[in-house]
């Protein structure tokens, strides 16, 4: 028992206490000075009926999630397949794909400000194939695609999870499929993909949770703009709580965001039973 006390103390003090306090605060009006004033459900009512920015931030986040999550999963899958061959210098290629995932979000954000300039690298690249690139960061149409493009640079973590899963597929399954006369495509679809479903599921859960918590790039690269086109929920929460000091209201945002994430995650686990294959489990 003595061994777990350090954790227990910090848990009670820095997690459980604030967790309960945050429920309470979300029903109050609190401006960081004075005492919280009880306002019942007002904060929640205001969120859904009288806060266009909040609704906008939810829609923006949904947009980002809908493109980012499938996009990054498909690209990471593709890269993992590429890297899973016997090639010389595999660690070098792996490093090239993985390194962006461990570089600090702030440094990455600055770098991409540079890359996304009207005459930046991205547009120069598009110019090579004859496309006249937009002015990414000052256009309310293109700012979100720009952030999504940037997010694809960070596929390393997802890719490594896939790579580990690919390496765990027993070779005899492929041999058996060959004996049955399956070609490359059929092997991919009937052996690789089913055996990868646990990894695919894991990354889908993690990426969706991550999408609801986008913050650094939205703050630094676009600062939510132009015209709120990249205002994410967490950025809205940050401004409300720590720039306008409406801490009661910000707590309500935090709780709605928490419930959204919880619901998405539970839904995914609920649907998982239908498509995720766990080897060794009797039920499918």
């Amino acid at each position, binding site marked *: 028992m*003595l*061994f*777990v006390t*350090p*954790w*227990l103390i*910090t*848990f009670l003090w*820095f*997690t459980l*206490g*604030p*967790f309960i*306090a*945050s429920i309470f*605060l979300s029903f109050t009006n609190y401006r960081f000075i004075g005492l919280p004033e009880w306002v019942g459900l007002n904060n929640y009512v205001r969120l859904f009926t009288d806060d266009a920015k909040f609704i906008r931030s939810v829609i923006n986040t949904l947009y980002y999630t809908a493109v980012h999550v499938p996009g990054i999963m498909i690209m990471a899958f593709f*890269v993992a397949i*590429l890297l899973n*061959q016997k090639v010389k210098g595999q*660690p070098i*290629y*792996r*490093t*090239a*794909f*993985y*390194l*962006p995932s*461990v*570089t*600090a*979000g*702030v*440094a990455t954000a*600055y*770098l991409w400000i*540079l*890359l996304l300039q009207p*005459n930046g*690298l991205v547009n120069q690249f598009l110019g090579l194939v004859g496309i006249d690139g937009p002015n990414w960061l000052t256009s309310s149409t293109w700012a979100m695609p720009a952030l999504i493009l940037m997010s694809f*640079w960070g596929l390393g*973590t997802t890719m*490594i*999870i896939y790579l*580990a899963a690919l390496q765990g597929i027993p070779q005899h399954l492929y041999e058996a499929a060959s004996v049955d006369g399956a070609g490359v495509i059929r092997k991919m679809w009937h052996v690789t993909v089913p055996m990868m479903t646990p990894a695919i599921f894991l990354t889908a859960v*993690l990426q969706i*949770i991550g999408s609801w*918590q986008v*913050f*650094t790039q939205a703050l630094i690269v676009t600062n939510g703009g132009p015209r709120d086109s990249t205002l994410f929920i967490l950025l809205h*929460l940050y401004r409300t*709580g*720590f720039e306008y000091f409406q*801490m009661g209201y910000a*707590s309500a945002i*935090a*709780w709605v*965001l*928490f419930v959204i994430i919880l619901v998405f*995650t539970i839904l995914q686990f609920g649907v998982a039973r239908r498509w995720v294959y766990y080897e060794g489990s009797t039920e499918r």
Partner: protein
Amino acid sequence: MTARTADSNLAPAVVPSGGRTIRSRRVQALQLLLRTFYYAVLIGASIMYAIPFLWMIRASLMSLDMFYVVPQPLVPNPPAWNNYTDVWQVGPVLWWITNSTIVSFVGVTVGTFISALVAFGFARLKFPGNRILFLIVISTMMLPQHVTIIPQVILFRELNWLDTLLPLIVPLLGGAPFYIFLLRQFFLTLPLELDEAASIDGASRMRVFWTVIIPLSKPAIATVAVFSFISHWNDFFFPLIVLQSSERLTLAVGMRWLQAGQYEAQRLHLQMAIALIAVAPVVILFFFAQKHFIRGIALTGIKG
């Protein structure tokens, strides 16, 4: 090179009957084509992922004028090495590095040690509530930071901890749920007989932990330490909220301060130089501890 490979591939085709020869020739040509195509895609994609880094290095060595020359020079000539000396003047960069180092150091040493201690408690000791408390550890792993941050900030204000490094350091003294979980799972794979043997020899619990469990868990502990370093070094949201004065910031928040503070003027070259300084330790660590990264992620699916 390619031609020679093709030649040697053709060699066995001189053998028997016509039809088969042509077919195997075709198959081999196709395989060669596929192989070439595969390498082209692999190398092309790797270069695309590496180029932004090269661009960062390039921009950090450009003088400000070079940004406005059309077309921009591909390689800055002469390289503006003085950016790396000028960068120390734009803000209290040395303080930022010191602060980041302090927090990361405590996180890696004390944080990892306590996580291991707590994990040992959960893995090896039977005490009432063990299972329930461990379930709580797992649920806090999934609790997003933003849910508790507002009351935490109020708490830190009451303690007079705002604008100091204490909010970043003190919570570490209880270990981190994620690392506790990871290490507990690892300790469970170690045979219990080892503990028992040591206990019979009269070793205390603490001695068992220190002389039996820790030495056997070096790889797992190294993985945790590496992850812990990266996550503390890169941490942004939390320090952004609790720190304020320019010389109290961590490096990540300091970079943001450069953008938002009185240095609003375009200083892209210096920002890139700082960004590179911030990224360097992580990259170096990555090259030395690559296998810990890969195993850690493969094991857990979480990035640092």
